[in-house]
């Protein structure tokens, strides 16, 4: 889209604003609006352009630095400034075959007088008629209109409602329109006026969805994306330096602070405003007396010194500022002609296309951040445990997390969301542990989010949360869900949906953070971080945290709590190793080894349901024929990601209609089948890492009635992953024993 850009002089300082509807701005700076507006008269207003591609306008705004000479500039000088600032853009545009340089600018108009009454009415007429773009017409022609007061008030109310709707969200223009159609019918036509008013009030941020960071920042992100994805969770120094980086990348962060101030003290304190203004202009000098901010820039500096590569790249980066998607943090790689802004090279982000296209001229609306709620340590852990029916181990972990949630308030100072790892073994009842945490935040009036990588988990979790918190509004978000625009106190979403939020939650709980697609996906990690308020709390849930987090937890860099035992108080079944030829070879020979068959028969004898995991989908069919031949009279089925009847088969397996299910890693998580045994064939395969071995082994012995399921690793060789997986299970069991969580002696079973 294209927008208007102008500079406005207040208290002897200029500042650049973007406008979706210039009439609103003219009224605002004439101090013409009534209650709820609180605009103030500007000394001078310089209309730089009435129709500039949004990306360029944002660049103008972000790069603007005030100096005293500006107060005496004539329109020619402003025009020269404009040309100068956008030189780079215009050159690039010409290169990609667009319009010639210089044809972009229309004349700069300097307005020194506040609007007179008649002109104000013209503005209103224009707002009412819905034609906001005054490209050709002037605002200073005669016209008629009345009832000014009513209109300014109703627009003020509309702005209030819009801000309320958008709070904590980060939406593209079509999404905003969709939301309004559904939630505030009747407003979708002239939302621009309301949005502009909210923007002037400092409650809404207008941004280009793809924009270049100013002055060479964020290279680190592009270069070591995967490292960052893990590194960001927990490591303190690391995270704070990244924060610093992020801050520089989005100078508007500090703007929002300014804006915050503006809203709270709208008319009386010009000194405050001056201070805020200064802070905005000299972003890096961090003169503000807020300790956190100073620390921050220092940490950022330290990061820069530590990485000479970053400094070396800075030169190149400055010349060719990397354009990034503000929603997902990826580098915008696509560049195409665009009809909306008229540029021949309008950048767009290819990474998050699935959630609507984010491009350099697409308007991204974000609400200004509000501080996280002060959670109280009102509920004691023991009470919470009794209330939610937690086991001793669960209660212990919940207590630790609760303590973290409330205690951290003392040292939260701008270092980004605090992180906490809840490392709970498979079948420990992770979801229940989060209930007391959610309760605490919700009771304090905060907003909480439970994010999980997969949609079926969302669907399974939603009714449980709804039962646990019947009083709260629950929003269930996934691709194509009905609740898309419902504002819930409690939100449960797939991780992709987090792209639509910005600083919206006080508590973010990320379930199964080591699972696809969240694991090693820098885009989703970025989205998750963005969704949390800067002073909010992150809680990671996992049975098998990534190596990096395990290490951080081990060295005390990451606060964490472990739940080493299952809810039923029995130890995890320790996998047994059996030597067996590769499945490929067995299929070639048409025979299955005796050890495998014997173990299968033992499991069948104790009437267990049997999972057989194989490494490749291609092996399923062959193995099925072999098994059916060797073990007649037993229902044996196979399923994989390519199987359309997957859900039916899993249900049949759960209902004991199928006794043996041959499958791949798709069933490694989230499936609970009572009385089950697990066989992992080709356990030495590269496709089975430590985490997936532990997860697969975790399918056995989950129910109270049969806590000692059997797990076998069958492979020709031992691998490190197998050893580590068994090590992890043993460690958890011994911790549980030491802490006295095991309620019975570990039942032993022999071959």
């Amino acid at each position, binding site marked *: 889209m294209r927008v208007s850009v102008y500079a406005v002089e207040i208290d002897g300082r200029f500042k650049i604003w973007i406008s979706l509807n210039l009439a609103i701005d003219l009224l605002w700076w004439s101090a013409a609006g009534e209650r709820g507006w609180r605009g103030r008269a500007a000394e001078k207003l310089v209309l730089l352009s009435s129709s500039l591609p949004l990306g360029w306008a944002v660049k103008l705004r972000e790069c603007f630095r005030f100096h005293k000479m500006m107060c005496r500039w004539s329109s020619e000088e402003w025009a020269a400034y404009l040309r100068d600032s956008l030189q780079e853009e215009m050159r690039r545009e010409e290169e990609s075959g667009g319009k010639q340089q210089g044809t972009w600018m229309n004349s700069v108009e300097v307005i020194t007088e506040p609007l007179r009454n008649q002109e104000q009415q013209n503005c209103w007429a224009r707002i009412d008629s819905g034609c906001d773009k005054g490209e050709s017409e002037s605002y200073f022609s005669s016209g008629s209109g009345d009832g000014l007061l009513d209109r300014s008030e109703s627009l003020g109310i509309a702005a209030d409602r819009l801000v309320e709707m958008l709070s904590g969200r980060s939406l593209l223009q079509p999404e905003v329109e969709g939301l309004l159609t559904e939630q505030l019918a009747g407003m979708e036509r002239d939302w621009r006026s309301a949005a502009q008013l909210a923007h002037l009030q400092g409650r809404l941020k207008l941004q280009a969805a793809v924009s270049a960071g100013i002055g060479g920042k964020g290279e680190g992100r592009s270069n070591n994306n995967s490292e960052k994805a893990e590194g960001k969770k927990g490591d303190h120094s690391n995270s704070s330096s990244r924060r610093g980086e992020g801050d520089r990348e989005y100078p508007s962060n500090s703007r929002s602070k300014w804006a915050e101030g503006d809203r709270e003290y709208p008319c009386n304190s010009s000194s405050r405003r001056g201070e805020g203004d200064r802070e905005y202009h000299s972003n890096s000098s961090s003169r503000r007396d807020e300790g956190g901010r100073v620390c921050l820039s220092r940490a950022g500096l330290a990061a820069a010194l530590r990485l000479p590569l970053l400094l070396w790249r800075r030169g190149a980066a400055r010349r060719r500022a990397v354009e990034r998607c503000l929603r997902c943090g990826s580098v915008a790689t696509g560049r*195409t002609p665009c*009809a*909306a802004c008229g540029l021949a090279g*309008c950048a*767009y982000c*290819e990474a998050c*296309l*699935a959630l609507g296209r984010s491009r350099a001229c697409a308007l991204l609306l974000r609400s200004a951040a509000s501080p996280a709620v002060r959670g109280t340590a009102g509920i004691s852990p023991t009470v919470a445990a009794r209330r939610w029916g937690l086991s001793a181990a669960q209660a212990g972990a919940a207590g630790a997390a609760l303590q973290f949630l409330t205690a951290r308030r003392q040292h939260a100072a701008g270092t980004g969301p605090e992180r906490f790892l809840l490392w709970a073994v498979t079948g420990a009842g992770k979801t229940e542990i989060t209930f007391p945490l959610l309760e605490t935040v919700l009771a304090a009036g905060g907003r909480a989010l439970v994010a999980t990588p997969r949609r079926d988990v969302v669907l399974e979790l939603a009714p449980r949360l709804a039962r646990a918190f019947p009083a709260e509004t629950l929003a269930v978000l996934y691709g194509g869900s009905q609740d898309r625009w419902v504002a819930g106190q409690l939100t449960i979403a797939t991780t992709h949906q987090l792209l639509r939020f910005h600083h919206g939650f006080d508590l973010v709980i990320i379930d199964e953070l080591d699972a696809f697609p969240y694991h090693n996906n820098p885009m989703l990690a970025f989205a998750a971080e963005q969704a949390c308020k800067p002073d909010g709390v992150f809680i990671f849930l996992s049975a098998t945290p990534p190596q990096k987090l395990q290490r951080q937890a081990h060295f005390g860099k990451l606060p964490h709590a472990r739940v080493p035992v299952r809810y039923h108080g029995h130890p995890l079944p320790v996998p047994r190793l059996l030597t067996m030829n590769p499945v490929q070879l067995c299929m070639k020979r048409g025979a299955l080894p005796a050890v495998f068959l014997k173990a299968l028969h033992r499991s069948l004898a104790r009437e267990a349901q049997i999972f057989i995991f194989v490494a490749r989908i291609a092996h399923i069919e062959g193995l099925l024929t072999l098994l059916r031949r060797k073990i007649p009279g037993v229902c044996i089925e196979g399923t994989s990601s390519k199987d359309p009847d997957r859900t039916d088969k899993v249900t049949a397996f759960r209902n004991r209609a199928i006794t043996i299910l041959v499958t791949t890693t798709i069933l490694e998580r989230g499936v609970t089948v009572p009385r089950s045994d697990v066989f992992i064939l080709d356990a030495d395969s590269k496709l089975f890492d430590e985490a997936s071995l532990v997860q697969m082994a975790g399918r056995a012995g989950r129910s109270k009635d049969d806590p000692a399921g059997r797990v076998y690793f069958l492979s020709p060789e031992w691998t490190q992953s197998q050893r580590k997986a068994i090590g992890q299970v043993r460690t958890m069991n011994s911790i549980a024993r030491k802490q006295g969580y095991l309620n019975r002696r570990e039942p032993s079973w022999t071959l």
Partner: protein
Amino acid sequence: MDTLTAWLTKVRSLLAPALLHCLICGKTSRPAAGLHGICAGCEEAIPWIRQPRCQKCGRHVGCPDCSRSGQAVPIVCNRSAVAYTSVMREMLGQYKYRGNEQLAPLLGSMLDRAYIRLKAERERGQQGTAEIQKAESAFTGPFFPGIQSARNRRWQADLLVPVPVSESRFVERGFNQAERLADVLSGRRGIPQLPLLVRTHHTGKQSFKHRAERIADMKHAFAGNPDGAVLLQFEVWLETLGKRTRPLQIIIVDDIYTTGSTIRACAETIRTLCNDYGKVAEIYSLTWARS
């Protein structure tokens, strides 16, 4: 140990065959031989329309529409590159609605194949008639048989006209898919393209409508482009053609042919436009998919 493995992986990747990230299935695998940007597996799975069942509308299955209406159709014929299967629908959706513009060259080159087929078909047809003519005129004009047949054998479209989208849709989407497809075709085959048409009213998304609604809607949806520059270009182009006796061969380009109402409406408009300039036009249509 980890660093060593990482290095080895990198070294191995230098020697490995070039793999690509397939635009359709998203997996990394062996590139296709013919089309750029997709893997061999996906290329094989493309439901090309090699032998259209309906000679008029180019449909791959029996087509009651063309025989049912019985009225004169303003186009010579329609040809489409692929059948509109669910995979193809997904692909077009990715491009049109999601805005994955990486797909544009791929879709364009697929349309190019349809053009080649259309061309081959027309040439075969012309050859047939040329032989008859030759037999008839064996006594009257035996002087330049070579030239005669060579001219007949080469069939070439003179102009591409993309189906326009409405202004609001154009701004919302940022591009006109038909125009982008025509761009690729015109780049490859050296056929000029002109935006001769505009949409007079916003008809809403066609994909939400029934057949009857679509046809009623389309009646007056298009008009000649009132833009003076385009008309001037058109005039200049007509002049460069000189005094050719055969009718103009104009191809309407669109992404999908469903009921043909869009194409018919466009063809009518182009025909009137050409008549205004005293020209006779043979109008063809070329679409990426036929549902």
